[in-house]
């Protein structure tokens, strides 16, 4: 897999460097899009790559509740590394958010919670933990999923398997196949689930389907690990968006959950998240947490404090929290408006393709169905940037660019064969597990 290392040399020479055998890494498929976008000088360019919210002028937004928290915190006094028992307050607020304040889990402290470096960091801590205590176990990831999931578990040296999730023809949930794959996986497997606003497809199971999935997980004794990156940004309501987790909890599953405050509070650069693992009792929670802290200690010692202070200030202040909830609703409303507008514009252009999925899908992203060839074409000719799986970040769509976007999509697709392009784009979902050097 990796190029043979050439480091054992008989000669010592500064002309031949130590790093000669280090090849250039491929660009990250998501973050690389922003790099390409930044390099583009066209005034019409649109960045639909990374899932960062933009206002209707296409500008980054700092939420008012965040500015409020900053003002409240200005001049805060101490800056030291939090002890590894780490920012208990942030963890408290996070678990209350996802599990509910009054639940037994929270009241009886049956959770091992640790602050993490956003969703990525929370997933990585869990992956390392999984490897440490279940060294042979693979992780089952949905097809498709956020590309970085593959990197995370791979770098933690946990083998990756996949289960079917999305059907490119229906552009909906491939429910039958999903259930089959859950059943045919060996008992006690670890599964990663998106509790709402699936990334990249925007396709979520409905309540009935979640109940069936949860039931089958009980039969198979699978471990459900939820990656909760969009609580509030799917429906606009915090509680609605944690419904899947509630269903699993009611069935008695002791789940794991990665939470991210990156998008839901617009704290992208601050890297605030939380990992929680539910346990039978408080003692076990304490033991598990101690192990998680050890893993974190060898990776970065302790998490950055500034962002977590912002989050816990907001969640701990009823006014700021209410303001936050309003602002989340406003973000969702704008995204839903843009979905409607984009679909309307495409239909007005008499596009031969079916664009219902634009308004059916949920959350920040639209899984357009555009093939990699179309995606490249959009970038080259129209300066419109998205990931090659055809995922569009709707947050990057504005009233002033939606028509340009619709026109561009129509231009590249009007003569294309839908089926073959769907098939090709479906195959693009299967991520390349190993990067060539």
């Amino acid at each position: 897999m990796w190029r043979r290392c050439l480091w054992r040399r008989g000669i010592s020479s500064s002309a031949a460097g130590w790093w000669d055998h280090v090849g250039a890494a491929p660009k990250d498929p998501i973050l690389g899009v922003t790099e390409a976008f930044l390099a583009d000088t066209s005034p019409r360019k649109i960045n639909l790559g990374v899932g960062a919210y933009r206002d209707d002028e296409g500008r980054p937004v700092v939420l008012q509740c965040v500015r409020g928290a900053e003002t409240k915190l200005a001049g805060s006094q101490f800056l030291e590394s939090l002890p590894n028992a780490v920012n208990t307050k942030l963890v408290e607020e996070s678990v209350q958010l996802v599990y509910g304040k009054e639940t037994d889990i929270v009241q009886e402290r049956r959770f091992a919670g640790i602050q993490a470096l956003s969703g990525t960091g929370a997933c990585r801590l869990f992956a390392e933990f999984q490897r440490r205590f279940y060294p042979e176990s693979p992780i089952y990831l949905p097809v498709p999923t956020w590309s970085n999931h593959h990197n995370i578990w791979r770098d933690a040296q946990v083998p990756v398997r996949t289960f079917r999730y999305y059907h490119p023809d229906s552009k909906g949930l491939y429910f039958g196949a999903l259930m089959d794959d859950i059943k045919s996986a060996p008992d006690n497997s670890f599964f990663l689930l998106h509790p709402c606003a699936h990334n990249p497809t925007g396709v979520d199971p409905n309540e009935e389907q979640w109940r069936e999935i949860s039931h089958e997980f009980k039969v198979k004794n699978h471990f459900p690990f939820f990656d909760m990156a969009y609580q509030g940004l799917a429906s606009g309501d915090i509680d609605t968006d944690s419904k899947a987790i509630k269903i699993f909890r009611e069935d008695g599953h002791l789940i794991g959950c990665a939470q991210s405050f990156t998008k839901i509070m617009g704290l992208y650069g601050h890297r605030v998240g939380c990992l929680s693992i539910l346990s039978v009792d408080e003692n076990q929670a304490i033991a598990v947490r101690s192990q998680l802290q050890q893993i974190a200690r060898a990776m970065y010692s302790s998490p950055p404090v500034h962002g977590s202070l912002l989050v816990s200030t907001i969640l701990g202040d009823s006014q700021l929290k209410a303001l936050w909830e309003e602002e989340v609703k406003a973000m969702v409303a704008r995204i839903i408006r843009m979905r409607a507008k984009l679909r309307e514009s495409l239909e007005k252009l008499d596009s031969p393709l079916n664009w219902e999925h634009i308004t059916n899908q949920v959350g920040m992203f639209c899984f357009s169905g555009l093939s990699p060839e179309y995606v490249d074409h959009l970038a080259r000719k129209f300066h419109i940037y998205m990931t090659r799986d055809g995922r569009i970040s709707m947050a990057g769509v504005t009233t002033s660019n939606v028509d340009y976007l619709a026109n561009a999509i129509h231009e590249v697709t009007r003569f294309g064969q839908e089926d073959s392009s769907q098939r090709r784009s479906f195959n693009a979902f299967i991520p390349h597990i190993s990067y060539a050097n």
Partner: protein
Amino acid sequence: MASTMLSLASASASPSTSLALQNNRMTKLILGTSDHTTLWGTKKSNPFVKTKSRGQITMAVAVNVSRFEGIPMAPPDPILGVSEAFKADTDEMKLNLGVGAYRTEELQPYVLDVVKKAENLMLERGENKEYLPIEGLAAFNKVTADLLFGADNPVIQQQRVATVQGLSGTGSLRLAAALIERYFPGAKVIISSPTWGNHKNIFNDARVPWSEYRYYDPKTVGLDFDGMMSDIKEAPEGSFVLLHGCAHNPTGIDPTPEQWEKIADVIQEKNHIPFFDVAYQGFASGSLDADASSVRLFAARGMELLVAQSYSKNLGLYSERIGAINVLCSSADAAVRTKSQLKRLARPMYSNPPIHGARIVANVVGNPALFDEWKEEMEMMAGRIKSVRQKLFDSLTAKDKSGKDWSFILKQIGMFSFTGLNKAQSDNMTNRWHVYMTKDGRISLAGLSSAKCEYLADAIIDSFHNVK
């Protein structure tokens, strides 16, 4: 409760001890073994899980039983655990000389003025909170490399340094360790004996083998230079040699400039690669340039090297987690490629680094007025530590009638002093005198006020002479 390990490795052979737990119709049998093939192909039991019996076990599991049932409590971190114990102590004479966090004479945490000013500037500007690129804030990466090597250093001019923002020293070391594991599989890192406790954890978790080279000589409470040279020579060719750029942690003992030259000689001879941990630039001597002289000496010889930096102590940004990993390569092209691979390692760890600390550093170092002010504040902090060293030495010499030579305290440099106290003596410091320190005999002078020097001297003298 028997500790057991559940494994998904398929196993044959007959079940031995069975632990039947209450179940319902959803009973599953899990056959597990406590032996696992590790990365290096040898069978080893999982060191993290207690197992009462080796061999195969069966367990019937009910769905609501956690699969993490057998997980033991991890040992408390030896350094951070000290602060926790200190907090729990109610004695009024208690003194926390555990973690290396700077304290004022009043033993209060200290937020640097330049940091407050930088944060106010940032607040006024109302900057956004967008993602940084994976490699971090460009302005930060530039100033941090300039600070380390000197802005007019040819290695900077030639663009031969790959710099990636990391989560303070730990995060930067971890990225480097991951790079070593991936591109130099089987290569060893040799670390000083003793060294910062977390170094071993980092290399263990990154699956990089390590061994120790002699460093501290308890007889002289100084550097075992011959032992160090000999062990570096002994190490397999092409090893990574972890060096503390200045203010060695935990001993406070640094090589002299002449000794650094000899260390560079033997590293070149053996084709090793130097790997510096620079956590105290400016904090050791009070001068940023002087404290970087070891790194610059190696760079000037045309050597390739790695440097992990931290701004936790010198800018007091402990909890913002700001640092960097620098790889000085022989060519600009190699630097570009190496940087791309560091990014690839960072992405599945945390995607991109936190913004706040990076902006503070970029604002302070990038603004001439703030930079000058920072240099003054750093001299003040380093100065306070030098003065408590002196006071402690004076108190010990005055009070101790045994004629023991305490001058090593003055020779050591930086935040820490290796007292030479053994574990039992260190325990006595805590149990009898409520002085909290690490069991290796390290005290953090940053946590000592001149008002408490006499008390500390009493404690040290008692522990040294009356406890064995």
